[in-house]
């Protein structure tokens, strides 16, 4: 009884604060710094007064990914300005990750004829609402992080996904675990749609690959004590533990496993790939393997330096590189003289672009050619480091 009452009130409160925040948040469009387009060299050939939008959460509790992507875009705009002397505006559409706000913002972007492309939407939920509107308006989009597999099955002509989708993550995780020589594996999830969905795919693929799942458990991500799970994993003497769930419970589970003398490799998906994973693991996160469709950190030092300079010292985070690459893909279209939505869409859809770490060539449905890679990250020396794609 208490639960429902409190939850009801909590939702009411959340809704109210959401409204307030929505009312307050309006970030002015940014201009890549420096002089005006006309005074710069090559100014005569510049496309006039164009904007590229970013669509995703920039404020609110889920804003981390959106901010990473937007920050990555800033580097692309800055470099474009330096190279061509032209100026393109970055127009932010801050959805707060809220699917309810997405249609209004999408219509606003479509209605602004100066907006020729959108990087985003960042999340799958808002994508379902906004993408039909973008499709209607012929406004090309490249999402750096919406990984729901069904998004590419809607026949949207403007849809491009710069990362692998969720369907590829589970098989890649199983492949990685088996590739490490693990035979007995514990697969644990948080009973959420994401966590259980991912863990179930991993379970199936592990069995297909000849390994056994000796412990199958679901834990309560809000619970405190995972000892009964830890005791089982300990008793089963497994080689690896896969966890389907988010970083907070992932960190605490890993800590309790290590406290319980379980030394098996800890592997988790993109929901656990966050710096806060290390906080939750209270110093026991070393050696954790975290998989994601995107790059958590960059390896290109020039990119990192410029990123930090443009973003007040912030380090590149998950999907920053994808945001940078996606923006560059659109800017490459501008450089090729494409200035209308239809032309840019055709360019992005057909012309491959070599990004920082991978090649972006899109299939007809907007997925990457070959589906894209799942990237391995490892906690090393108290930091999340990039290892490379699952081979």
């Amino acid at each position: 009884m208490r639960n429902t009452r409190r939850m009801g009130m909590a939702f009411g409160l959340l809704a109210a604060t959401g409204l307030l925040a929505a009312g307050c948040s309006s970030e002015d469009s940014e201009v890549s710094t420096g002089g005006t387009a006309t005074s710069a060299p090559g100014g005569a050939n510049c496309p006039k007064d164009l904007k590229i939008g970013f669509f995703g959460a920039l404020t609110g509790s889920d804003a981390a990914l959106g901010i990473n992507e937007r920050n990555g875009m800033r580097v692309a705009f800055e470099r474009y300005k330096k190279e061509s002397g032209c100026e393109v505006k970055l127009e932010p559409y801050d959805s707060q990750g809220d699917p309810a706000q997405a249609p209004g913002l999408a219509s606003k972007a479509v209605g602004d004829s100066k907006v020729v492309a959108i990087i985003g939407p960042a999340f799958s939920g808002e994508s379902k609402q906004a993408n039909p509107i973008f499709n209607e308006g012929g406004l090309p989009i490249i999402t750096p992080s919406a990984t729901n597999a069904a998004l590419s099955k809607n026949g949207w002509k403007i849809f491009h996904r710069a990362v692998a989708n969720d369907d590829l993550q589970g098989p890649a995780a199983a492949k990685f675990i088996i590739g490490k020589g693990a035979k007995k594996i514990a697969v644990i999830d948080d009973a959420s749609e994401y966590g259980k969905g991912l863990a179930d795919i991993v379970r199936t693929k592990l069995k297909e690959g000849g390994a056994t799942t000796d412990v199958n458990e679901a834990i309560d991500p809000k619970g405190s004590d995972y000892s009964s799970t830890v005791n089982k994993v300990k008793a089963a003497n497994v080689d690896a533990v896969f966890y389907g769930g988010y970083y907070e419970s992932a960190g605490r589970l890993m800590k309790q496993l290590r406290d319980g003398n379980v030394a098996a490799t800890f592997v988790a998906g993109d929901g656990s790939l966050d710096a806060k994973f290390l906080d939750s693991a209270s110093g026991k996160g070393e050696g954790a393997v975290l998989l994601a469709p995107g790059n958590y950190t960059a390896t290109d030092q020039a990119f990192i330096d410029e990123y930090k300079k443009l973003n007040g010292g912030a380090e590149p985070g998950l999907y920053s590189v994808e945001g940078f690459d996606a923006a560059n893909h659109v800017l490459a279209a501008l450089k090729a003289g494409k200035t209308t939505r239809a032309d840019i869409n055709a360019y992005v859809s057909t012309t491959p672009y070599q990004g920082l770490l991978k090649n972006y060539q899109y299939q007809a449905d907007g997925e990457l050619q070959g589906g894209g890679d799942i990237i391995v990250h490892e906690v090393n020396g108290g930091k999340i480091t990039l290892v490379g794609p699952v081979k």
Partner: protein
Amino acid sequence: MPSIFAAFEPGAVLTSFWPSVIDGLALGSLYALVALGYTLVYGVLRLINFANSEIFMIGTAGALVGTSLLGISLADPTQAGLGLALALLVCLVISMAFGGAAAVLLELLAYRPLRRRGAPRLSFLISAIGSSLFLAELFARPWLLGRDRKPVPEIVDHAAIFTFKGAIVSLDKVIVIVGALVMMVVIDQFVRRSRLGRGIRAVAQDPETATLMGVNIDRVVTFTFLLGGLMAGAAGLLYEVRFPGTKFDIGFIFGIKSFTAAVLGGIGNLRGALVGGIVLGLLEAFGGAVFGSEWIDVIGFTILVVILMFRPTGLLGESLGKARA
């Protein structure tokens, strides 16, 4: 998944008997300490103080303040020997002070005005729910805990001291179990033997007669909240010893579980809180081992319902007022 009980392993009762006992006791003693806060206030006021879970949360924040005052860093948190004793003592005092102060303030601001106006019982309940939400959201402000999990230095080493038939016995578990038991005994004896304790029991038994006998009800009520808050604060620290890290909503689930423990043991009964907490902790440990962790809550609550069917007032059933000196 072949069946819903995919992880069903009846043999686990035996194979993981000792690990379940140790872990269940450690968890159960934490439930018991928080349950004290619910049971004391209920015994005196017939009020379920839902905000007790947030008092517990404030207690966990006390550990954060204590460790930072002592300059214990996240990078090298583990203390030993005298340093550990000092750190625990400082943090315990701060956590209990936080918990006690918050509980007394809560009583003064949220409940006393209602009592003065003779408000119906339902108003108290709504006030309790409101205070609970208010405190959680207050601590979610960026200048307090924020919305993200805050890491707390792990002052007690979690490494095994020894293993006993597969059960890992570590210092944090020992401190939690012993610490909680000592607190429970102290408060039980206090309520049974001291003058103020007699006042608490008198008001619990019959508030009107107690007033006629010269008991200052307001003082007794404030004191009851103080005791409950001190215990919830201490529970907050012990929780941090066992599970380092806190968050603004950390008390929510833990509070529900502790309230369940109070009802299981017999709400209003101090020893019932202890029994209920330990029983619930053990049920969760063994339930998780046999049926799989996803069934922990189902098992806990099923047994609660069954026990309440046969013993509607809980395992020990007796109320605070009837406790003998």
